[in-house]
C-alpha cells in the first residue's frame, strides 16, 4: 500500500532536526510551482529572473527553517521570502527595470483596445484580456503589484497579504485601491467594451 504523503510540518521537522535533504527536496517539489509562478507575475514574465529568485527563496527558506514558527502556512511564509527577494532585487535594478518598463508601455499603447468584433466570453478574448492585464500590471509600483499578486493570484486575505508584505492591512488595501485605479485607466478600452 502506498504511504500517505507527509504533511509540510513533518517534513519541516525532519529538515530542522536531522538536516534531512530528502525531506527538503520534497518541500521544494511541492511548492516550486506556486513560488515560481508568483515570481513570474512579480517580475513581469521574466522567467530566468523569476527562477533565480525562486532558487534564492528556497535557499533562504532552508537557512531559516528553524525560525519558522508555523503560525502561518508554509506557503505563506515562502511567499513572504519570495516577495522580499523580489523587492530587494527590484530596488537593486530599479533604474534598469524602470527603463525597460517605460519602453514596454510605450510599445503597448496601441494594444489595449479589444477587437471590435469581440463578443461574449470566447477564449481568444479572454487570452487577450489576460495579456493586457499583465501589461497593465507593469505600470504598477513594486508594492502595488505585490499586493495584487498576493490577494488575487495567490488568493490570500488582506491579513495574510499584510503578513507576506510585512506592512499594515490598511497599506495593503491602499496599494490595491491605487493599483486598480491605474489598471482601470490602462484598460479603459475593456471597460467601454
Amino acid at each position: 500500500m502506498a504511504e500517505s504523503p507527509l504533511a509540510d510540518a513533518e517534513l519541516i521537522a525532519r529538515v530542522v532536526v536531522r538536516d534531512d535533504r530528502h525531506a527538503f527536496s520534497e518541500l521544494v517539489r511541492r511548492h516550486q510551482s506556486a513560488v515560481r509562478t508568483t515570481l513570474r507575475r512579480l517580475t513581469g514574465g521574466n522567467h530566468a529572473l523569476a527562477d533565480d529568485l525562486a532558487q534564492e527563496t528556497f535557499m533562504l527558506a532552508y537557512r531559516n527553517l528553524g525560525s519558522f514558527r508555523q503560525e502561518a502556512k508554509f506557503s505563506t511564509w515562502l511567499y513572504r521570502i519570495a516577495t522580499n527577494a523580489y523587492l530587494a532585487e527590484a530596488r537593486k535594478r530599479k533604474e534598469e527595470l524602470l527603463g525597460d518598463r517605460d519602453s514596454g508601455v510605450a510599445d503597448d499603447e496601441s494594444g489595449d483596445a479589444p477587437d471590435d468584433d469581440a463578443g461574449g466570453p470566447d477564449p481568444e478574448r479572454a487570452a487577450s484580456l489576460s495579456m493586457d492585464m499583465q501589461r497593465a500590471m507593469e505600470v504598477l509600483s513594486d508594492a502595488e503589484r505585490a499586493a495584487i499578486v498576493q490577494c488575487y493570484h495567490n488568493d490570500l486575505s488582506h491579513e495574510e497579504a499584510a503578513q507576506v508584505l510585512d506592512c499594515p492591512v490598511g497599506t495593503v488595501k491602499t496599494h490595491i485601491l491605487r493599483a486598480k485605479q491605474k489598471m482601470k485607466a490602462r484598460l479603459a478600452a475593456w471597460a467601454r467594451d
Partner: protein
Amino acid sequence: MNDRPLPAAESYTNTDDDWLEAALLADGREHRAQYLDDAGFTARVIAALPAPLALPAWRRPALMLLWALAGLGIALALPGAVVDVAYDVMHVVAGQHVSLSGIGAAVVALAVAAWAAAAFALRDD
C-alpha cells in the same frame, strides 16, 4: 481573492469597477490553475545547498580517549578517596543480607546504566 471575510473589500469595489474586479478574479483563477513542471528546478536547489556538516572520522575515538584519560586522571589524583570509597562500599555490602536475586537485580541495573552511558556517549550529533 478568496472567500474569507475582507472587511473593507467593498470600499474599493463599486459598479464601475465590477468588470476589473471580475477580470482580476478570473486572472487569479487562471494563475492558480497553472502548474509549472519541475524540470530540474528542485535538483538545482538541492545541489546549491551548503554541504552537510561532516564530522571528522577521528572525532569519536578521540572523545572516548579524552573521557578515559579524564577518568584515569581523577582516579590517580584521588587514590586514597577511590580506595576508601571502594572499601566502604564493600563494607556496607558485606554487612547486608544479600540474596541471589538482589545480586542479579544489581547486575542488571549496572548493565542498564552502562548501556545508557555508552548510548549517550556514542549518540549521533
